[in-house]
């Protein structure tokens, strides 16, 4: 969006400066250690997703620290080279190219938007550099964008929207209305929800598309109310979701329909407040509250709390941690930093970093993992971090993903 672009230029100095100071970039120049393992980390430090991006960096630094504290790989330490991609695909490609050519990074992990991760992937694919994406996309696993160097640590819309559909349709009903942000990611969420819904006999009454970045949704709401669906699916993200949730609440939509959203982010919920999100159900890759039932989640949260003054990691933050950790663990398993050897090691990796067992599916390198269905709380909250109830955890299975053949992969 036009206004975001102009904001970002100025903000670069502020946050970019802080980010540069917090990474051991200067140290690296001074000592010029050629044997450190360098991981390039392009992410939108400025712009509308900056809160999530900064959390990604914090958690990724934790993964680096744990690796180094454990002695690194044959004494070789790892370091993170963070770059601001400004949520702009062109900027992301440039920064990635610089990381590869100038900074000579061994691996790339990062990104936070369907469009930027595809441009980062294109660069890495061409330069034959391993890229582990930590942002949602369906396209990145499809044969035309994918390469053997591409890994996808994050969930994709097929998995999240599908899981939310499988949870909500049997419970709340089959008449569906979508309120969709009119861009690729919005459309992908609708497609995935409908795909899962079809098997259960759900029907779409309307897919109402709104311009990306709309601040007032009230004009769409009387029609939604008149259509009277069982479920309203908000297929938008970030601030769009915050505004839409708020106005749906104000217009009393919750009294006659259930509101769900494929991706319910921790940060969006914090920004929107308990009232706007009350009772809204959505999917997420991680919620810190998992620590009650998953030991690795507890260990991850505790390490994060210790490093960052008691704060808890967000969903996208956790992806930053896992994305880096998988690469580092694969280096150890491969006993090498050679790209193809690490690729093979990652393909064979069975890991449990923070949310239970995971692995990368061989044909498309998609991380097979659980989807957590959460409901936003508005009562009995223990502290400001206590925002969701975990309703269910959809277990790890390839059945719920698009098949390798469907994605255009052979074998």
């Amino acid at each position, binding site marked *: 969006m036009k206004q975001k672009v102009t904001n970002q230029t100025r903000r670069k100095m502020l946050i970019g400066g802080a980010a540069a100071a917090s990474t051991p970039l200067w140290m690296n120049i001074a000592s010029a250690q050629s044997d450190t393992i360098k991981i390039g980390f392009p992410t939108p430090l400025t712009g509308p997703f900056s*809160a999530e991006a900064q959390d990604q960096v914090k958690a990724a630094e934790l993964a680096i620290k744990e690796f180094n504290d454990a002695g690194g790989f044959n004494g070789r330490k790892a370091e993170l080279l963070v770059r601001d991609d400004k949520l702009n695909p062109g900027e992301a490609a440039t920064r990635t190219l610089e990381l590869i050519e100038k900074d000579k990074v061994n691996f790339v992990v990062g990104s936070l938007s369907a469009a930027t991760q595809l441009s980062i992937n294109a660069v890495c694919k061409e330069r034959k550099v391993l890229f582990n994406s930590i942002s949602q996309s369906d396209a990145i696993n499809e044969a035309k964008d994918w390469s053997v160097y591409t890994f996808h640590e994050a969930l994709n819309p097929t998995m999240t929207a599908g899981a939310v559909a499988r949870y909500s349709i049997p419970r709340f009903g089959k008449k569906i209305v979508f309120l969709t942000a009119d861009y690729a990611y919005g459309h992908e969420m609708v497609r995935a929800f409908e795909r899962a819904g079809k098997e259960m006999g759900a029907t779409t009454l309307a897919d109402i598309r709104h311009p990306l970045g709309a601040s007032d949704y009230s*004009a769409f709401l009387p029609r939604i109310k008149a259509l009277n669906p069982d479920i309203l699916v908000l297929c938008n993200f970030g601030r769009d979701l915050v505004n839409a949730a708020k106005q749906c609440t*104000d217009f009393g939509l919750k009294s006659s329909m259930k509101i769900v959203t494929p991706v319910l982010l921790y940060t969006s919920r*914090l920004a929107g407040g308990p009232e706007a999100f009350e009772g809204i159900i959505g999917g997420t890759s991680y919620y810190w509250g998992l620590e009650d039932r998953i030991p690795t989640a507890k260990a991850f949260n505790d390490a994060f709390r210790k490093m960052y003054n008691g704060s808890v990691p967000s969903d996208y933050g956790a992806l930053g941690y896992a994305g880096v950790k998988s690469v580092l663990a694969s280096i150890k398993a491969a006993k090498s930093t050679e790209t193809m050897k690490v690729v093979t090691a990652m393909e064979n990796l069975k890991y449990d970093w923070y949310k239970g067992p995971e692995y990368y599916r061989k044909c498309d390198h998609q991380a097979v993992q659980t989807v957590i269905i959460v409901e936003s709380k508005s009562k009995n909250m223990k502290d400001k971090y206590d925002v969701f109830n975990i309703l269910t955890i959809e277990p790890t299975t390839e059945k719920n993903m698009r098949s390798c053949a469907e994605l255009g992969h052979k074998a």
Partner: protein
Amino acid sequence: MTGLTFELLCMQLLTGIALGSIYALLALGLCLIFGMLNVVNFAHGAFFMVGAFMGVYFLGLTGNFWFSLILTPIVTGGLGLLTERFLVRPLYGRGIDYPLLLTFGLSYVLIEAMRVAFGIEGLPSVTPDSLKGSLDVGIGFFPKYRLFLIAATAMIILAVWFFIQKTKYGLIIKAGAADQEIVKVLGIDIAKVWLLVFGLGCAIAGLSGILASPTRSVNPEMGIPILAESFVVTVVGGMGSPVGAVVAGLLVGVVYSMTSLFFPDLSELSIFVLMAVVLLIRPQGLFGKAGAMG
């Protein structure tokens, strides 16, 4: 479209009016400043944003919405006075583009200031308890707060109208807009009038910010898209015409709302189409005088 009922149309109209109220209020402040000072205030959206932040902040501090409704315009109005006195005033007589660029820059300073003070994600906004829920308006239930918004906007617009039409100060303002030389000759300190008008415009912007805050998320960038929309409103209504600002504000809200009903993905475009059509038929806007840009 199936299921198109009279109730739905009325509801859509009401939604449009509520939406248009904010546009009208914002455009009114914008056009007061332009009409009087010939300053295109690009910081208007930022004052709107500051108003929303102040509103939520004061509400958190005092717990009283009505109190923050009074306090907020005082703060943004005061900020407006300082802006006019120390930033805009040295640029008078240098053409329309100098203050335009200055206020454009100021808007970014204000955005950054709010980011530093309240964080990049913004604040969760709150609806006052007494205005929560919805009311049966005969055609269905409509959020109480949006009804209040329509009423409050109407009252503010009436008050501004009364101030300009019926008071001595209003007379001076109108005279100053028509011919500042004569006003000066009559021994009136025109600089004070300008100061007051700029402050008033910014106070109204802040007031629209706090009024809008319960209906949307409060974040540092919230003033940018709405500024573009209020400029469309001012152009449709006619630059510098307060009546035009109000009528066009409501019109834009209703057009947006009605387009949303039939062609949701074109809703954002619709107001620009409206502007184009109005400009083709009446280049000076609905209520504008020809050549208002001077």
